[in-house]
């Protein structure tokens, strides 16, 4: 096979300009980190109290739904926030809605060896897509498992699915990295309208839904409707939100001219030439990743979207006018509320809760924190305990989290995600992966296999101290209460007593598949 393509980084290395960078592969740095006394370690497991109710109580329910899994000690901590569980829930919600106030040193340290997740966009083309994918996945897994900003990470997952981008499509291989850090993460608990605009101008989205090719330079050119349709159908109003084909075409006209520069700018330039230009300091990747408005590719006539006129001559400002129309449409409030209620309450979300949540979304002008606060205060939220089935990513992350495992998000977890068809950032079609866990139950054998490998210490890049976990829980029955969020029934007790590895059995059991 052909040799690896030279890159500017490789060129610099050859030129002797950056010898130290040869150390910068994450694998080597992580090996190095193990040898250093400063290598970050998560808090050690300490004895903890598990729930003791016959059924799932409110605090466990809150932890099930607002986090990626109940870490050892969290039930005890959140229960102690107040004497009444309702007040504990309220305080926990408030704590989690202010992630910037939550100390998260371990995650920062654990992710420090990854380099591509911090690279400027123009530099990303110097990485092989496999490394970008590896780092992005590691980050998603490490944060979901180890971050204390759990609701924030849950919402990052929610919006990642909502604004789905398949990072295996053309230049999305490089730009999804930028979408994650500049679109999803900054706005996950922010304002929906801001999130929507960031997504509309995300280079990854411009490539994924072909917005970059949406041009009207002459009378014969027809706009590319791909993004405009998904904007209405999937990102805002929803498929039954009351828009027409005409609205899609008009929205596409508003968006003509917005484009992003991809790697085709390299064409004709050799790697050596790119390296020389970069060394001379006058070009950082040929403008790659730059999003720009090309006025001569914009249809500047008058448009009407959802009955609202957008006057001729607006140019680049058409974008904001369009996003205002769709973001404030009542169907959008209902659509987003429905999806949030499905996520946090039930696969078939109760209509009353949807109405309440949609009202707050609308009245707060898309304030995501206010909307979530409202959702968590509904009676429907409190009532819907243990009724949802985990999707594969959730299962894997919650198994790691609830057993106090330490993971780098590397090989073992990534392979398990892949065989279960749930690798992050890889769902091919724009609607995103199915939200209901029942759609993912063909993965059960792989879940059992994962559980046995994890508890048996055979999962690469993840470590579980089974003996310490059992001791800290206070024995087998207490560990079952911790993992199930309730007292185990007689069949579960009997099953746990009959196997060598009760932790594997518990993770593989029906009760741990639900939340």
């Amino acid at each position: 096979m052909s040799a690896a393509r030279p890159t500017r980084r490789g060129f610099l290395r050859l030129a002797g300009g950056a010898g130290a960078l040869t150390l910068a592969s994450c694998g080597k740095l992580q090996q190095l980190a193990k040898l250093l006394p400063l290598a970050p370690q998560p808090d050690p497991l300490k004895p903890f109290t598990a729930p003791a109710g016959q059924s799932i109580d409110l605090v466990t329910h809150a932890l099930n739904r607002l986090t990626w899994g109940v870490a050892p000690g969290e039930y005890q901590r959140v229960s102690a926030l107040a004497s009444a569980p309702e007040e504990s829930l309220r305080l926990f919600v408030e704590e989690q809605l202010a992630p910037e106030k939550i100390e998260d040193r371990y995650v920062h340290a654990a992710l420090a060896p990854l380099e591509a997740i911090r690279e400027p966009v123009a530099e990303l083309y110097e990485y092989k897509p496999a490394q970008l994918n590896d780092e992005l996945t590691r980050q998603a897994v490490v944060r979901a498992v180890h971050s204390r900003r759990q609701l924030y990470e849950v919402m990052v997952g929610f919006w990642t699915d909502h604004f789905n981008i398949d990072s295996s499509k053309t230049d999305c291989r490089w730009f999804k990295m930028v979408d994650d850090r500049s679109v999803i993460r900054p706005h996950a608990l922010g304002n929906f309208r801001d999130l929507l605009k960031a997504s509309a101008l995300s280079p990854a989205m411009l490539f994924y839904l072909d917005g970059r090719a949406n041009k009207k330079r002459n009378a014969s050119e027809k706009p590319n409707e791909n993004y405009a349709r998904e904007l209405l159908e999937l990102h805002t109003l929803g498929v039954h939100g009351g828009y027409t084909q005409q609205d899609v075409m008009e929205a596409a006209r508003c968006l003509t001219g917005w484009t992003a520069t991809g790697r085709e700018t390299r064409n004709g330039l050799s790697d050596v030439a790119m390296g020389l230009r970069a060394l001379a300091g006058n070009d950082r990747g040929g403008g790659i990743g730059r999003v720009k408005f090309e006025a001569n590719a914009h249809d500047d006539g008058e448009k009407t979207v959802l009955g609202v006129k957008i006057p001729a001559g607006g140019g680049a400002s058409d974008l904001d006018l369009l996003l205002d129309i769709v973001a404030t449409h009542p169907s959008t409030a209902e659509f987003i509320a429905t999806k949030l209620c499905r996520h946090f309450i039930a696969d078939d979300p109760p209509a009353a809760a949807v109405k309440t949540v949609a009202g707050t979304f609308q009245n707060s002008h898309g304030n995501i924190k206010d909307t979530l606060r409202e959702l968590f205060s509904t009676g429907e939220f409190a009532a819907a305990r243990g009724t949802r089935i985990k999707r594969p990513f959730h299962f894997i992350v919650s198994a790691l989290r609830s057993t106090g495992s330490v993971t780098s998000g590397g090989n073992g977890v990534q392979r398990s995600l892949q065989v279960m068809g749930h690798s992050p950032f890889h769902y091919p079609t724009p609607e995103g992966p199915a939200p209901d866990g029942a759609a993912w139950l063909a993965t059960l054998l792989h879940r059992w296999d994962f559980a046995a490998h994890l508890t048996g210490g055979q999962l690469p890049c993840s470590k579980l101290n089974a003996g310490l976990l059992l001791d800290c829980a206070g024995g087998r029955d207490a560990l079952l209460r911790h993992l199930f969020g309730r007292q185990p029934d007689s069949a579960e007790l009997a099953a746990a007593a009959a196997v060598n590895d009760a932790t594997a059995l518990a993770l593989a059991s029906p009760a741990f598949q639900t939340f």
Partner: protein
Amino acid sequence: MIHDLNSSPVNTVLSADQDAAPILVNVFLRGGADGLHLVPPLEDDAYHRARPGIAVKKANALRLDDLFGLHPDLAPLRPIYQSGELAIIHQCGTADESRSHFEAEDYLQHGGPQGGGWIGRFLHQTRTPSDGPLTAVSIGSTVSDCLRGAAAVAFRSLDEFTLPDKDPALRGQLAALYGKAGGALGLAGAQTLQALDRIEAVRKASHAPKNGAAYASDDFSSGLKLIAGLVRAGVGLRAATIELGGWDSHFTQLALTGTLMPKLATGLAAFHRDLGSDLRRVHVVVTSEFGRRVAENVSLGTDHGRAGIAFIMGGGARGGKVLADWPRSGLIASALDGPGDLPVRFPIHHAVSSVLKRIRSEVDMTKVYPGLPPGELAV
């Protein structure tokens, strides 16, 4: 709490009557297999002139029709061709003109300049309630990109596809708990346990090919043997992928392909014999990311080119012929693309479409290959 779950429809069944279902087997010849060497145009003088050191001589080739022959190392495929079960498509390729392994393979596996995989999209569009843990399988260590979008597994042998046996009681206890669970989880648990039984049966049976088929011991043949075992066991398999790599013959092509062609031919021939009448519902597609330059290079090899070759075996293929639209002038310079490459006349996705339409006549090919012009070939 488990009992509160609605028994919603579940897409995780391993039903016992999968025996008639059609199965797609996608063979990828990684590295850029040289169609002009595998199926040489014996009567094209320009071919012989362009390859004075490595052209397949008329006297050595196995004659297929009045233009083409089969390389003698592919002899085991000839009876399959003669019985009409093997079709050959020459001048076959994709729209990717990069001549880069990475770009061209990417285009091929994703089915165009997009995310997802073409088999993944096909399986998604034609999914059934009986899709289960062994619906889509890659033989190897990673799931092939063409399966993206489907829940797919990768393994080299069935020994990797099981519960760890260090805890023999685990399985029985899971059976007990899922038996009590009811709802979607209970159903899925029962079906998964059934799947484990079937896989174990395959594991035993896969060592016994049928009809006197004798597989070689290389990875490619072993993988095909495993696929045949899965086909026969009725485990719900709908698509399998396997690779035979190493076709990047820049240097001393004869030595390099001299070991690969026998692997390819003996593997496919053993698979053909093993499956016997089951091959009517097993559709084998063999492709590569590109073909190779017409003229040999200074090191008796060939460089990256454009059109290559595809094979379709079984599944009712309209075989016994080489589909080609050969330039009347032969492979003279003016008939070639760019640096001297065989132009693409038949898109690979048209060849594949013919197969997928046989598997499921109502499939919407514009959803399997979005953005690519639809079409089919008479193969």
